[in-house]
């Protein structure tokens, strides 16, 4: 069966969907991505849907599931490149994709992932009990 390629870029996995998605292909992508997150230790996933001229409830559910599963596996998902007409249709369909991060393009998606990662790291450091009473951020975050 055909598979959608998953590319590793540093600690980010990049998926660009370039074909009209059959349901089985969408399900296969969901499984492939979970496996790759674990095998590569990736902390971010970018799904580029620039080429998709529609996102129906099946594909919308796939995107939401990928985002939720990757979150459990300590990776953030950003969906990028959604066309305006697709966004309008998704909202009217009743699937506003709450819980799925989006960015306009791959570059902004990567930037968002970096910010989320830094933010999560900073708050983890802040909430750690600090016996010295020193509340300043560690040097590597400054």
């Amino acid at each position: 069966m055909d598979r959608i390629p998953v590319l590793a870029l540093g600690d980010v996995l990049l998926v660009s969907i370039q074909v009209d998605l059959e349901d089985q292909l969408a399900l296969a992508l969901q499984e492939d991505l979970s496996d790759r997150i674990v095998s590569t230790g990736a902390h971010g996933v970018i799904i580029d849907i620039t080429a998709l001229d529609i996102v129906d409830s099946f594909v919308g559910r796939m995107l939401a599931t990928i985002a939720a599963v990757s979150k459990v596996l300590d990776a953030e998902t950003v969906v990028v490149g959604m066309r305006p007409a697709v966004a309008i249709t998704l909202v009217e369909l009743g699937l506003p994709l709450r819980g799925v991060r989006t960015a306009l393009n791959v570059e902004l998606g990567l930037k968002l992932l970096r910010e989320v990662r830094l933010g999560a790291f900073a708050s983890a450091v802040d909430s750690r009990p600090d016996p010295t009473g020193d509340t300043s951020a560690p040097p590597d975050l400054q």
Partner: protein
Amino acid sequence: MINAEPSGPAQVQLISGDDDVVRVRQLVRAAAVATKLSLVDQTKLVTAASELARNTLRHGGGGRAEVQPVNNGRRNGLRIIFVDEGPGIPDVDRAFADGFSTAGGLGLGLSGSRRLMDEFELVTEAGAGTTVTAVKWER
């Protein structure tokens, strides 16, 4: 009844597998472009067709889609008809409720596609099948 007179030939696509859902989308997309629907309306129509084709496959056990240009005396549009000979829908009101699903989906197929179309009609009979007719008009 939907007031829509055919203004061109009907195209038919049989639905018996996942790949046929993709074929229905492509057929409807091409017909929507030919009918000169706006990009947003094309997208809504193709998305609704995708939901309905999946319903025909999953709930109706397969069937067929019919795509035809229509006119109501004022505007041109595109009509899509989905026919199956499956078990029918026992409780139509429930089937139209957002979030109701018997196939493990999101339950947006019928309710969502009705919102995306301008006209929508569902005829179903227990044991005899379901026919959905829907139209998107040119603005």
